[in-house]
């Protein structure tokens, strides 16, 4: 299985090189217009996140919470990627990503699991590992001289939603390696909601030693999903979402934790995801409320239904989505 994974990773790495070369054929990125130069640096970052050998420590701040982590990444000689993220405070949660399989180990509760995914969930948006083209229609990107971050010279990239209805990202990219050194997620008004700041960063010639024997470690069981999902039942759906959001999945099920029966719709625009939950108002019995934060939530009562919208979006956007929910016209 390991060999199979390796070949898969090699082929994606080859693809990345192709796109990389494509952007390199234009002589100097800085000589171009700011937008394409910004895209160049965004793509440098996505390549760096896949290809660099590095050891880093970082602090993630979310609201008033600070979370230190170590973050190691390396590439075996055959091209297989390894990434290790360790939470340093509180519960011992670690993730190991080897190629296209990501395992989450947690202590002390025995609930570790493996997912088939080439992105470690929870540290950076998955879109940061892709070329910028995918985000192009709905986000714009700007580059500027960045301040000194982690002792290094940087470029500062801003990712802005075209309609100001989504959160914005600020990224500080190391000029020499293309590595992401700092990230801020802000409201369109500029209030910082979430930050990642690397406190140490060392690039290595080869894979960090601590990663070299991870390849053979036992992985927790793979999480499989039920194939045949039940279709939504309540016959209502959002009629408005910000431009670019597309339906990823829709189902009727009981939500995690409380077993409340809901219709669930998950939408994405490539960078940001939003969930819309529809449930029976009597059963749910939440007051109407709005929470704005790194993860916002808006709850609205609509006739016999309760509409709950959750995602990394401004509460006003969630409200507009919730307000747009209507019965499907037959």
């Amino acid at each position, binding site marked *: *299985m*390991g*060999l199979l994974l390796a070949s898969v990773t090699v082929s994606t790495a080859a693809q990345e090189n192709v796109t990389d070369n494509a952007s390199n054929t234009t002589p100097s990125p800085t000589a171009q217009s700011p937008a394409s130069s910004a895209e160049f640096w965004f793509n440098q970052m996505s390549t760096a996140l896949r290809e660099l050998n590095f050891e880093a420590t970082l602090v993630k701040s*979310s609201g008033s919470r600070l979370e230190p982590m170590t973050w190691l990444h390396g590439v075996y000689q055959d091209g297989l990627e390894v990434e290790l993220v*360790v939470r340093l405070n509180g519960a011992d*949660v*670690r993730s190991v990503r080897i190629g296209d399989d990501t395992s989450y180990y947690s*202590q002390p*509760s*025995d*609930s570790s*699991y493996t*997912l*088939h*995914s*080439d*992105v470690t*969930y929870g540290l950076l948006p998955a879109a940061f590992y892709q070329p910028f083209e995918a985000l192009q229609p709905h986000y714009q990107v700007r580059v500027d001289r960045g301040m000194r971050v982690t002792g290094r010279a940087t470029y500062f990239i801003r990712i802005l939603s075209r309609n100001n209805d989504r959160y914005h990202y600020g990224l500080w990219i190391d000029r020499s390696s293309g590595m992401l050194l700092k990230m801020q997620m802000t409201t369109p008004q500029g209030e910082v909601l979430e930050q990642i700041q690397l406190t140490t960063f060392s690039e290595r010639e080869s894979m960090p*030693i*601590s990663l070299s024997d991870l*390849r*053979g*470690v*036992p*992985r*927790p*069981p793979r*999480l499989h*999903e039920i194939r045949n999902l039940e279709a*939504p039942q309540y016959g209502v*759906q959002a009629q408005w979402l910000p431009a670019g959001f597309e*339906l*990823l*999945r829709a189902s009727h099920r*009981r*939500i*995690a*934790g*409380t*077993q*409340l*029966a809901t219709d669930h*719709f*998950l939408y994405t625009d490539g960078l940001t*995801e939003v*969930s819309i939950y529809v449930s029976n108002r009597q*059963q*749910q*019995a*939440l*007051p109407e*409320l709005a929470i704005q*934060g790194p*993860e916002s*939530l808006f709850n609205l009562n609509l006739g016999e239904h309760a509409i*709950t919208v*959750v*995602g990394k979006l401004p509460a006003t956007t969630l409200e507009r989505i919730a307000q747009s929910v209507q019965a*499907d*016209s037959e």
Partner: protein
Amino acid sequence: MTDRSYEQLSALLDNASENSREQEQQLDTLLSDSEAQQVWSRYALIGRVMKGDTADQQPLDISAAVAARIESEAPPTQVVQGRFGKQRIQRWLRPAGSVAIAASVALIAVVSVQQNTPVVPEETVQPAFATAPLGGRNPVSYNTVLQSNEPTQAELAQQTRLLQSYMLDHQQQLQLSLQAQQLNENLETTSETAAESDGKPTEND
């Protein structure tokens, strides 16, 4: 062990030592140092896998062998100490027997609820949402109390739990959709359009 001694071990394994005297010295070290022996066997294993010496389809068996080895290994005090806490590796790399996405994702989810909800004064956090289902009948007094805008502690706790479960469920779905996209990127688009046309009358698009 230092980085230098890792290198020496690795060199010894590859027969890459400068001279026979150095090699002899390293062999002595290896024979006298249990830490070094453990590293040796791991390197040898990694080397065999990388060179493809192992039979086809072997990797699964190797991880089993590694697992067995880890099981039989001495307590953490004797385990190799590295810069990034190798002494703990043995403990956390032992996977759990059963799968339960809920609890571990809950750690993440609860965290975000905790910081996000000034609205809800309830502070207690229970990583495992071992609760009675919310659905079904609520206490008769529930709605009346709520209308007076002074929910009881129990109601607040219940609301918090529900808010947390929305956050938790959202995060679970994000992870599962990452997996779904990875597994079936091409089919994803077809099923996506199918789902859309099923769920949404065309006149609303």
